[in-house]
């Protein structure tokens, strides 16, 4: 990889600067926090209402002893939550609608929907 790569770092640098300029300043931080609880391989509540157009922090508490994987194709999110622990994920901003999610390790019982209004 001796010759020709001198131009590549400068290309990358250019793309990076472009990206940084495009990104709105407020990247970090959510507009609200909501909780979900996993108990007996079920989500509580099974329907969670959140406002449209806002980035939201979802805190998921797994009260079961075994791990669960929060997964939602609609929200494009997946995270493993070990037993007896909590984890958080950021979702949104979302358009109004219903976004189903499941606990992938116990799909038969662990399911719910995020209702965005």
């Amino acid at each position, binding site marked *: *990889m*001796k*010759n*020709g*790569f001198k131009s*590549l770092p400068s*290309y*990358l640098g250019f*793309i990076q600067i472009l*990206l940084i300029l*495009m*990104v*709105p300043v407020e*990247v*970090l*931080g*959510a507009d609200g926090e909501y909780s979900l609880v996993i108990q007996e391989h079920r989500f509580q509540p099974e329907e969670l209402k959140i406002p449209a157009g806002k*980035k939201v*922090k979802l805190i998921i508490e797994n009260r079961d*002893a*075994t*791990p*669960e*994987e929060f997964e939602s*194709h*609609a929200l*494009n*999110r997946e*995270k*493993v*939550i*070990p037993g007896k*622990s*909590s*984890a*958080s*994920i*950021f979702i*949104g*901003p*979302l358009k109004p609608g219903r976004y189903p999610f499941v606990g*992938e*390790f*116990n*799909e*038969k019982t662990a399911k719910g929907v995020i209702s965005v209004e």
Partner: protein
Amino acid sequence: MFGTAVIVFREVLEAAVLIGIVAAATRSIPGRNRWLAAGLLAGLSGAGLVAAFADGIGSLASGIGQELFNALVLGIAVLMLAWHNIWMASHGAELAAGARAVGSAIRAGKRECSVLLVVVGLAVLREGSETVLFVYGIAASEASGASSMLTGGLGGLILGVAVGYAIYAGLLRVPMRWFFTATGVLVLLLAAGMASQAARFLIQADLLPSLASPLWDTSTALPEDSIPGMLLRSLIGYDARPAGMQMIFYLTVLVVIAFGMKLASRSVAAIRPEP
């Protein structure tokens, strides 16, 4: 039992497709089977470790440890695949022609093999850790259907491996003329798909903005949990509802690696003029 088969199949498929493509792409490198096997074993033991320490990893970096870990593992894999493709662009032709010059070719082959080991190991580690956690959950629970679920899991594993092997065997049938182009394109798309996944994890951890989410919604036309959807996801990183930022990562990696491959092949041609 069917449910667990599907879950395990999904995880295994991702790794199996990657291994199938990488195994085909490195067919001309001597000794690569040993390195493949080593990568597999390393990945499996790593998966066990990651599963065991899932708690600790998850709580790193104030709760986004898992996303950072996943993004890091994917990022390293992207770099390794990029290296492979760029290296192949300059050396692939010699190896294909059977040139077995002592010294530099063998050394380069060894380096390529260690890259191969890392890529395979990381893929197995990523998908394997989720599978281990899932299976552990089943085994730990006192559910009466545990043994049938484990059987289902085994079935999913075998099926996933079979698909990976089918891809490998299918690629080997491609005529030599197109073989390196085919595997090069597949590796390129693999890397781009992984970059898109890494972006998704970073968005989930609020380290990156999503920028237009979703960019498109093809979930009714081609759902991600359909068979073709799963295959496309493993092969080209198909996402039914990608965020805009994922697309940026995908395209950037695609362009950068393709650019690197072009440069590498051009520099070789300059040094070694056609007879």
